[in-house]
């Protein structure tokens, strides 16, 4: 199945949970990444149960701190 992650098409062999998706995609510091699917920001506690479906538009949003120092 194909989904979109941060604007790019990604093909997955099978349906996975959000938690698994973060692992498969080797997202760094996944515990601090906000996940948005189809215009909804997920509750972190749903990561283990919610599965990603064909055609889902997924955004991984990252903390970005810099600016002044």
């Amino acid at each position, binding site marked *: 199945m194909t989904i979109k992650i941060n*604007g790019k098409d990604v093909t997955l062999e099978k349906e996975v949970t959000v938690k698994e998706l973060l692992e498969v995609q080797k997202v760094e*510091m996944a515990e601090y990444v906000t996940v948005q699917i189809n215009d909804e920001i997920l509750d972190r506690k749903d990561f283990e149960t919610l599965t990603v479906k064909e055609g889902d538009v997924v955004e991984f949003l990252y*903390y970005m701190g810099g600016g*002044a120092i």
Partner: protein
Amino acid sequence: MNFTNEQMERYSRHIILKDVGVKGQKKLLESKVLIVGTGGLGAPAAMFLAAAGVGTIGLVDFDAVELSNLQRQIIHLTKDVGKPKVISGKETINEMNPDVDVVTYKEWVSSANIKDIIRDRDYDFIIDGTDNFPAKFLINDACVLMEKPFSHAGIIRFQGQTMTYVPGEGPCYRCIFENPPPPDKVPTCKQAGVLGVMGGIIGTVQATEAIKYILGIGELLTGYLLTYDALAMEFRKIKLPKNKRCQVCGENPTIKELIDYEQAVCDLKS
């Protein structure tokens, strides 16, 4: 307020724009923008707002200029090393545009002072140019609670991102990022490095948002996160929903007072 001949000439490229004109330029000269942090983001933002004729610019920063700042913080010059950043910034702006009244706050923002700083001149728009999460969450919460629009941004390595909050119109920073990451978990520019121009791109977007807000023109980055990847030379505008679970602007907000979060130890100046 009537324009002098000098002002007509100085702002002629604005005045000729249909969406700005004499009326818009007056709005800019009468507007007040607060910039928190005069570093990588705040420096270019402050310079473009000053050049544009934003009449009152507040600068907040406790730091002094260091040699390692000059690779990107273009409001400060080599001769300014050792000088408080707000003073160095004020001097540059004064030389650039005498129309601008620069108000300096040589302070770190905290729950104890941020509301007073914003109230001081009743700023119209706030620019978050800070480098740390406690300050970013503090600015967000203060602006949500005080119903002030602000521009959030962050830069690191070859990447940057920014969003604009307007009260009642879209998500706040906390809608997207619920809480600051634990200290030391997410790298800062000091630890990870940053390409000097990143602040130029993103800080200038922040200045653009402030100007558009003041003029009431165009579409703001409310409900959008603009991300920039300099290596791929790719901008993306990600649509962001409001988060009804948001602790500060959601349906059942639990944050009613400002919070002072712990700063990463490695960021603290000795």
